[in-house]
């Protein structure tokens, strides 16, 4: 299935049986409803209903929790990388 959007993007769904959520404002298509809700409020906030906004707030909260864990992982990774690099430098320059 090939579909052109008004946003100048080309869309493709792998199989006809795959789930498709379509934005009612710009024909942008998504695999999951959560992504559609995010898109609707992020791009067409002034057109969204109160129910959509409420759903967005709920999903944002869930995503914020996941994002917090993600950021913790990132901070840990930064520290670990710096430490590893410092060790490599120490061994390379001394050895």
């Amino acid at each position, binding site marked *: 299935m090939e579909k052109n959007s008004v946003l100048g993007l080309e*869309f493709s769904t792998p199989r006809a049986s795959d789930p498709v959520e379509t934005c009612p404002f710009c024909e942008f298509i998504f*695999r999951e409803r959560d992504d559609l809700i995010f898109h609707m409020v992020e791009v067409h906030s002034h057109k969204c209903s109160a129910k959509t906004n409420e759903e967005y707030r709920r999903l944002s909260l869930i995503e914020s929790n996941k994002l917090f864990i993600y950021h913790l992982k990132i901070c840990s990774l*930064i520290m670990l990388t710096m430490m590893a690099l410092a060790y490599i430098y120490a061994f390379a320059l001394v050895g």
Partner: protein
Amino acid sequence: MTGFSLFKFTSKWFFLILIGASLLPIPVMAHAGGLPLTNEPAIIPTWLFVLTGGVIIGISFLFVSLVTHRQLIDNINSYQLSLPFPQFLKPNISILQFLSIFLLIYTLILGIFGPQNPVSSFSILFVWVIWWAGYTMTVYLFGNTWDALNPWKSISILLPSLNHPYPSKLGSWPASIGLLFFVLIEVGSDITYSPYTLSLVLIFYTILTLMGSFVYGSKPWFENADPISKFFRCYGEMSLLTSSKNSIEIHLPGTKLVTGSNTLGLSARHEVLFIITILFITTYDGLISTQFWNKWVLIPLLSLGIPLLIIHLLSLIVGHGLFYAIYHYAIIISHRISGTYISIHSLNIKFAASLLPIAAGYHLAHFTGYLLTFFPAFVYATFHPLSPVPFHPNSLPHWIPLLALIFILLGHICSVWISHCISFKLFSGRLQPLRSQYPIIFIMILYTMFSLWIVTSPLAR
């Protein structure tokens, strides 16, 4: 195989190869000034130096990943400083166009009748030092002025035209092939040191360009098919300055690529290929000057009796194809990881713009020392165009090679940011855009390490 497991599988093999390569017992110390005319050895081994570059890009991505608020991203990209630009400072375009046509003819004549020693030749120094190195820098730093200064465009406007419709199927293919052909001539002939050859090539290019604009009209030809105009238009989108009627806005580099206010008009695969071509030629230029290339590629192939031009032609085709294949593969994995319905074709086009800062950073790194070294020779040749003089290159400050490495890293970091912003434009939520970046960042890390390896490799004698 899901996108993420495919990514993990690929990355595992890449890292194994990388570690294997770094453990090879090659006693080569980093030459932080492997750039032209400098060869001061650095105090750290090459593999560690290259690894550090890759780590810096990886960490820059991790830091950028902390910025997930769309409003903040928009605020950063829309930040600009407006400076008044008085009308009397605006240059007279007609005079500049006349000057550019005069310089073209002057360069052509001096190339044929002037001194043939490259460091005394105005033609060689003007084309390679001032125009190719210096002017290109002004385009990606301050903005594209080539549309106004292009002497061939100024001449073509004065000539009649058949105004045939430009075939849309051709797209940017002539520009991409033209740019590769230009590099082939640069590396495979004596055009960089023979003023006479340079003039002949300029005459050939002039005839071809004027014929193209005669058939298709000046505007369609220079917008689609002319490699030099397209090259400068792409670089111009990187600039720190934007001019309006009465003011000049200073903003972050590459902002126009993110906000979509650029004039690239990327809409098809051939446009992506052109950007890949720009990226590739800057790398290829550096690669062929390394000892590695000479020892392992050039000399073995020459010993088989293959002509130099054919070697370069094959290398350009294979290398260009490889660059595109790696980029395309990264986009395919990004598409799978993000789980988006946006087609791979569209993602290919949208993320291509983020490669431009890498090319600009590499160009700046490659040509800063070159420009500073040969600029005094150009000044002398300007005032004494017919008298050859012995050339004594200035010794550059010891921090110039370090500056070159910083430019490469800054180009990559800028690219990481632009790619991050584009992903937030395309994908919804905050986690999906971040995850979509893994493969793109991965190839950026590899490319940074490859670039640093090139500039730290000993130069071929």
